[in-house]
């Protein structure tokens, strides 16, 4: 199933709203898959300002 990216927090979802913030501003135009497993230890999460594990897009347009 095709994933959409939240324009607010870049989380990916197959639902109609973002699982993190409930936003319905979702985009199918995204690139770069980022899977955060351990947000506390991940430097990638820190750089991107991601506090919660999950699937994210690097870029949403």
């Amino acid at each position, binding site marked *: 199933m095709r994933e959409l990216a939240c324009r607010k927090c870049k989380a990916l979802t197959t639902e109609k709203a973002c699982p993190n913030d409930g936003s319905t501003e979702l985009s199918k135009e995204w690139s*770069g898959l980022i899977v955060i*497993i351990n947000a506390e230890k991940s*430097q990638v999460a820190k750089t991107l300002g991601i506090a919660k594990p999950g699937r994210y897009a690097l870029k949403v347009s």
Partner: protein
Amino acid sequence: MAVISDQERSSSIFPVKTTGGQERTVATFVANRAVQKGKPIYSVLALDTWKGYVLFEAPNSQVVDESIQGFKHVRSKIPGMMQYSDIEKFLVTKSMVAELNVEDTIEIVAGPFKGMRAKISRVEKEKQEITVSLLDTAFSMPITIDAGYAKLVGRAKTDVPQAQS
């Protein structure tokens, strides 16, 4: 909230070669397997700038070997590892400068002022640079930084028409 210093975040990046076009499949599969088996992989990246590879952020090479083992779209692990700083530049997207405007609030995501918030006072699109003044600090001297180091966190209140580029 616990503040974790860079010293405590001691992860390295391990690139793994995959079948072309299967980067996201591999990232998803291996991330799920790592979670299920409790392997300490911190993040998994399938970036457009790294076609044919999936990047694993982990404390050591062994956990990556164990997690990718036997998965059909995995070709091979690249020997050795990369420091986190080697891939940081792929995470800060250069095209950001087009979206930045004076008075916008940004967070600085790399370099010596990393983690600080700032307000933009000047945008130089050609040089991909912005001049900002730091917020949350008494030190208010303007500094000029690479636009790729900025993450937009708040738009200026006024609706300025977007310039066509």
